[in-house]
């Protein structure tokens, strides 16, 4: 049995009561996945990312969603939010709190949405991320039976963030999950949606998520992907946004955890005034591998995009950045800016970065660039002359490098969390965690 067959066997063992249209989708996904199989490094889009650790793995489907409030508190954000909790891909109702949603907003586990309102969900689900996008979206389509469906009626502004926590447990048998997130933002609606991939130490599971966001005219969606999976986790994500006139999609793609992580981020700017901002941070240690592939399609005139990705790479970690901006013929007077800056803390860390502009219009403002460097030694010296040792000086400057992306993060709980994580994960050499905590305490005092 080859790898795709082994994965699909789990599917055959499971679903029997799907509605017919869902069953048809699954079959299409499974057929596609069986035909293409896992990508290899011969595929251009996977040139630097070897997924054999996924293909060779043996992943069951989680049997339950058991988790305690204590275990959740240990890995989730303390956030005043509408919360939906998935444990190894299965919905946990007790830990979720979706009772106080304002009028015009619904946040539903995918399983319930499929049962109660399948025609509407069926119309949108898979519209942006079909089975052809990648082997992983095909695999997700075959398996996805749980996730989050967020719907915003026109003009609705959601008071608090919608916080989807996706927990990966430390299981005896490694599991896989294929969550699906669907965000439908009606005209002039506004919401912040957080996907938080949190894990327990020792977890070694495979998460394969697909997110689709549909933004009608004037809608604003702030989308956070905060990936803090355990160091053994395998994580593949595909995020797709489709934007109407004057809409705005702000994407924050923050990767701190996982052993093998791949994120595809695709936005289609389909009408005038649509605007996308991509902010990314990845901080890698050990042998972590994180690959970000981003794509902005300027399909209409007077659309705007701005992208800033920063990577900090230590030890023998490997980062990949591939950012593409595509400007369609006749998409005049667009503006597109893209930048990727990386900081290498070790001689053995590696970054492969490729910013790309493909332009078929002639009246555009575009820029792109990539830099990779080391810390500013003059700044290290200046800090040392104040009595700060060289290691901590480098830590402060590393934190500062990350800070340039994090200052775009308007949710202080996330900004502080990431700052602490970056500071705290450099303990041996940099020892900054205490400093950040006390400085925050001072600020609040």
């Amino acid at each position, binding site marked *: 049995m080859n790898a795709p067959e082994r994965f699909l066997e789990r599917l055959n063992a499971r679903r029997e009561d799907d509605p017919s249209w869902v069953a048809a989708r699954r079959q299409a996904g499974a057929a596609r996945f069986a035909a293409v199989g896992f990508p290899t490094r011969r595929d251009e889009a996977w040139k630097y990312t070897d997924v054999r650790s996924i293909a060779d793995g043996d992943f069951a489907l989680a049997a339950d969603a058991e988790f305690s409030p204590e275990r959740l508190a240990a890995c989730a954000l303390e956030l005043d939010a509408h919360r939906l909790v998935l444990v190894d891909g299965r919905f946990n109702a007790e830990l979720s709190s979706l009772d106080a949603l304002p009028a015009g907003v619904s946040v539903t586990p995918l399983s319930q949405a499929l049962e109660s309102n399948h025609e509407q969900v069926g119309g949108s689900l898979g519209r942006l991320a079909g089975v052809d996008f990648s082997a992983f979206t095909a695999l997700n389509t075959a398996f996805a039976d749980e996730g989050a469906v967020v719907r915003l009626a026109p003009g609705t502004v959601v008071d608090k963030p919608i916080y989807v926590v996706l927990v990966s447990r430390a299981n005896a048998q490694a599991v896989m999950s294929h969550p699906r997130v669907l965000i439908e933002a009606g005209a002039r609606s506004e919401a912040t949606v957080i996907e938080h991939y949190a894990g327990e130490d020792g977890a070694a599971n495979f998460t394969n998520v697909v997110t689709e966001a549909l933004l009608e005219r004037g809608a604003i969606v702030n989308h956070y992907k905060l990936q803090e999976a355990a160091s053994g986790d395998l994580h593949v994500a595909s995020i797709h946004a489709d934007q109407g006139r004057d809409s705005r999609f702000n994407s924050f793609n923050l990767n701190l955890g996982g052993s093998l992580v791949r994120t595809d981020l695709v936005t289609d700017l389909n009408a005038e005034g649509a605007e996308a901002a991509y902010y990314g941070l990845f901080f890698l240690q050990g042998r972590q591998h994180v690959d970000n592939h981003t794509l902005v399609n300027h399909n209409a005139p007077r659309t705007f995009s701005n992208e800033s990705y920063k990577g900090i790479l230590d030890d023998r970690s490997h980062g990949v950045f591939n950012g593409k901006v595509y400007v369609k013929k006749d998409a005049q007077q667009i503006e597109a800016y893209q930048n990727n800056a990386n900081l290498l803390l070790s001689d053995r860390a590696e970054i492969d970065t490729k910013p790309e502009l493909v332009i078929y219009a002639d009246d555009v403002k575009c820029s792109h660039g990539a830099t990779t460097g080391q810390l*500013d030694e*003059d*700044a290290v*010296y*200046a*800090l*040392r*002359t*104040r*009595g*700060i*040792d*060289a290691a*901590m000086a480098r830590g*402060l*400057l590393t*934190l*500062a*490098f990350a*800070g*340039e992306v994090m200052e775009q993060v308007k949710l202080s709980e996330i900004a502080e969390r990431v700052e602490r994580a970056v500071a705290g994960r450099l303990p041996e050499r940099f020892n900054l965690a*205490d*400093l*950040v905590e*006390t*400085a925050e*305490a*001072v*600020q609040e*005092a």
Partner: protein
Amino acid sequence: MLEVKDLHVTVEDKAILKGLNLTVQPGEVHAIMGPNGAGKSTLSAVIAGKDGYEVTQGSILFEGQDVLEMEIEERARAGLLLGFQYPIEIPGVKNIYLLKAALNAAREARGEGEIPAPEFMKLVREKSAEMQMDTSFLQRAVNEGFSGGEKKRNEILQMLVLQPKLAMLDEIDSGLDIDAMKVVAKGVNSLRSADRAILLVTHYQRLLNHIEPDRVHVLVDGRIVKSGDKSLALELESRGYDWVLEESVA
């Protein structure tokens, strides 16, 4: 407190200091003056430990310790602090982090524990007010986007928080208008005490109207060629440096 003996320093094989001697006692304020290129900034940079300066001969002792054997940060923790002529901008590193980390490093070196947060906040608020700096500066990145005067005040703020035994101030007056200079001078003067010393490196006499020195040294071509009290500074202001040079050669 500070004893510099027969110091010879080369930069990229060029001799800059050629046998400099200087002794500073606790409680004293010394001013080192001299023409451009005499080696004034080299002296303070060597004492602080900047890379690229090779000491070929001589010694620097600080409270009996061999400074040249100490790491840059050890010198600062021992109480030897340099205020820069051109304070460097450090994007993303908040002032509050620098102050907190620096203060705790010095306290740790003295065997004291970390400063409690409320006490620290009280201290930095107080010192910021003395330097007429809004506390919003504490949350800003070190010197980033600061005006020339704000950068200098920030240097002195660090001195006031860290309370060095020997503060070396390199051209602290350059680029300051008269009001900013008064604020900076007031800050420096508040550092004066019987067990601390200050070393001012300056090209112009005007700073010394605001920070009165006990001793004035003239540094020419890598050596101190004349020393005196504050009246020497006034004489230099009216007569220039040439006569000192002629006198020393004669």
